[in-house]
């Protein structure tokens, strides 16, 4: 786990990358890889690397090359099946100098080219410079666990794990928010790659490989999610057989993630099904002292302590906790936004930032998490809601069918009549259009998009040039209409919220902020293929979410966790920023002057929003819209302050361990992969 960056002259004869720029990029990613630094440079390409050492501590330094020094790599992540691939490659005659997974990628590229990436079971972002072909290859794992951003300017291409490193390495890049990126954020709750929130910056799509060669660019998907499209396709076994297969696949996924590490691996434990199952399997694989980490909330509405304790008692782990109060969230929020590098509509990433800090302070570098289970096994309310709304829409006049909503959201049954009526209005809108793509997501996207009324007229006009929902739905795979409704909903969830928010803002960024690597058994290649092949009714059985997973977990997870209603992970939102204890930056960021300077929102609207939130006092319930609006405005303001207006920090000295500079040594021959030299200071 690491940070990677690079700069390539897209045309021969353009100025070579400078050591200063590469140093600045490595320095900007210090939090991602504080252990070792390295760089490579020739007349066309420069690569920079910040390393968090996890596999092959002794000889896994980067950048690293092939046998004859013509192919150089920077790599962030893990290839969990690297030992198996290494054997295959050795059988093909490739010679290895290190024990790292990094070197496996280099030889895989030589042997299989672009087909390599589909063979990797892992989480990765890769930059490969083929000096002989003068080609740059960039690739990113199937679901987007590891980030990769790009920018072009003046005939040069810059890439990096984080936008901050792009800005540090190329101060000449314009720094401004992109209205279309904002429009996506205030619709899908995130940008959807390749769209980024900064103008001129793009994000490599998950599962894609991109090659720059001879002045041309080719970008293709080496993997996309697939679901059964016709009867007879997909998993044909019984439900108990499916549960057995799921348990076996998950155990293997956990085993790979526990054992393919040269440092201890711990686990997050939320108290829900997914992380309890992962932690139980981790403990089973490890068979000895095993650390688990939990978030607790002072506010009982969000807290899951009793379930966490039950899981710990069952697993027998060495357990650590951090207790989060509303002031804690406000206090770290600026730093959270700095690391997330995008506007947030929820504060939920903030507690996860505090949790990864606890992990680091406990001396652990790698944790398993339960992320991905809800997407792969249909855990979200949105999926159940979509099924109920479609069912109702087949008899739109039915009085009984909408009552199913009360099964879904029990609070409705206890609500005042007016609220029930409005809920029917809300969920029932366009209910007869259940076959249209995006149907289930309308109830999420619509209310978020309504918040664009806060944009300035100028931003609204610029944002309006792209219909972001239309663009997303126009880019669906051709087989999409043949998938079952649940599979369609899962695909959209994976494409939007998983990659853009859960794995990024709540995942990689909050983990790497404290130099901790997350590993995601539910996103294992085999687990994903199996889950996607299952019939929808095995995942969502009636309204029982993750049904097959619960069966698979029966022997491993306490009964009370199997039976508990799903509790979405949430943290106090607007509540964190109101009241006398709110930090000063809140009021400053919302002041008409700051809002005007940021140039995204109209000061009048923000003033009204702030007044309403303040008037609600500390104890009041904020509506979903108020929560998203306040958190969205605050995070956007913090983003502008920290990443747009503030000039990027340029590190001038980084303790490089690996330096290969072909420009100052034009006659230098190839160097072995693990040979390093120290750079004269």
């Amino acid at each position, binding site marked *: 786990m690491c940070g990677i960056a690079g700069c390539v002259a897209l045309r021969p004869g353009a100025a070579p990358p400078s050591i200063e720029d590469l140093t600045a990029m490595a320095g900007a990613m210090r939090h991602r890889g504080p252990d070792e630094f390295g760089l490579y440079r020739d007349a066309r390409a420069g690569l920079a690397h910040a390393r968090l050492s996890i596999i092959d501590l002794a000889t896994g330094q980067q950048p690293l090359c092939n046998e004859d020094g013509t192919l150089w790599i920077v790599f962030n992540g893990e290839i969990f099946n690297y030992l198996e691939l290494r054997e295959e490659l050795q059988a093909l005659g490739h010679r290895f100098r290190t024990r790292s997974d990094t070197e496996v990628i280099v030889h895989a590229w030589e042997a299989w080219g672009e087909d390599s990436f589909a063979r990797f079971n892992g989480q990765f972002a890769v930059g490969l410079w083929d000096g002989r072909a003068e080609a740059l290859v960039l690739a990113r794992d199937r679901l987007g666990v590891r980030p990769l951003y790009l920018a072009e300017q003046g005939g040069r291409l810059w890439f990096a794990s984080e936008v901050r490193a792009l800005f540090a390495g190329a101060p000449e890049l314009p720094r401004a928010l992109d209205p279309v990126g904002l429009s996506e954020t205030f619709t899908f709750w995130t940008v959807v790659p390749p769209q980024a929130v900064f103008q001129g910056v793009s994000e490599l799509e998950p599962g894609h490989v991109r090659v720059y060669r001879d002045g041309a660019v080719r970008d293709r998907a080496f993997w996309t999610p697939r679901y059964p499209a016709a009867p007879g396709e997909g998993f044909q076994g019984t439900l108990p057989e499916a549960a057995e297969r799921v348990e076996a696949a998950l155990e293997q996924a956990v085993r790979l993630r526990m054992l393919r590490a040269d440092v201890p691996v711990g686990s997050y434990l939320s108290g829900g099904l997914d992380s309890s199952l992962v932690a139980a399997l981790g403990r089973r694989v490890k068979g000895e002292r095993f650390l688990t980490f939990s978030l607790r909330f002072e506010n009982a509405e969000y807290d899951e302590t009793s379930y966490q304790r039950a899981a710990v008692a069952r697993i027998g782990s060495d357990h650590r906790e951090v207790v989060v109060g509303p002031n804690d969230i406000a206090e770290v929020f600026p730093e959270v936004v700095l690391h997330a590098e995008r506007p947030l509509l929820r504060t939920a990433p903030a507690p996860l930032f505090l949790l990864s800090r606890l992990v680091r302070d406990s001396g652990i570098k790698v944790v398993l998490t339960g992320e991905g289970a809800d997407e792969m096994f249909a855990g979200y309310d949105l999926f159940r809601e979509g099924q109920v709304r479609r069912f109702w829409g087949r008899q739109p006049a039915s009085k009984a069918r909408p009552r199913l909503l009360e099964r879904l959201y029990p609070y409705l049954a206890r609500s005042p009549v007016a609220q029930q009526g409005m809920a029917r209005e*809300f969920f029932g809108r366009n209910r007869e259009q259940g076959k249209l793509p995006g149907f289930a997501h309308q109830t999420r996207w619509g209310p978020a998009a309504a918040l664009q009324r806060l944009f300035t007229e100028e931003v609204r006009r610029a944002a309006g040039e792209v219909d972001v929902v239309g663009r997303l739905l126009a880019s669906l795979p051709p087989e999409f209409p043949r998938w079952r409704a649940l599979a369609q909903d899962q695909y959209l969830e994976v494409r939007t919220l998983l990659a853009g928010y859960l794995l990024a803002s709540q995942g990689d960024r909050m983990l790497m902020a404290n130099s901790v690597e997350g590993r995601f058994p539910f996103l294992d290649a085999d687990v994903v293929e199996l889950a996607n092949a299952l019939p929808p009714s095995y995942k969502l059985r009636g309204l029982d979410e993750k049904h097959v997973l619960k069966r698979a977990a029966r022997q491993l997870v306490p009964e009370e966790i199997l039976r508990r209603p799903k509790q979405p992970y949430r943290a106090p939102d607007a509540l964190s920023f109101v009241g006398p204890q709110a930090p000063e930056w809140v009021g400053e960021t919302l002041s008409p002057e700051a809002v005007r300077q940021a140039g995204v929102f109209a000061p009048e*609207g923000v003033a*009204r929003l702030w007044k309403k939130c303040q008037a609600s006092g500390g104890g009041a319930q904020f509506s979903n*819209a108020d929560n998203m609006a306040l958190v969205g405005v605050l995070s956007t303001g913090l983003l502008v302050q920290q990443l747009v207006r503030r000039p990027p920090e340029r590190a001038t000295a980084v303790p490089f361990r690996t330096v290969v500079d072909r420009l100052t040594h034009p006659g230098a021959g190839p160097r072995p992969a693990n040979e390093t030299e120290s750079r004269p200071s």
Partner: protein
Amino acid sequence: MNHAPQVKKFIVENFYVSDANALGPETSLLEGGYVDSTGMLEIVTFLEEKFSIKVAEEELVPENFETIARICAYLERKQAKA
């Protein structure tokens, strides 16, 4: 009595409308992105408290609350009956 200014003031403030001029009597509150369903509840609560009326279940239909003009018409009918 013309309730429109009061209703509009509430909507502008409560739903943090930036440009009050763009919100006319016939602007659709739902389609225009001003109000979502929980927002509608806030409107109903406001009307019940401010104008001492009781909104019945069968009256909770978009026809009554879709625009400021419809809200005002609804209010007048309610008050005429009272």
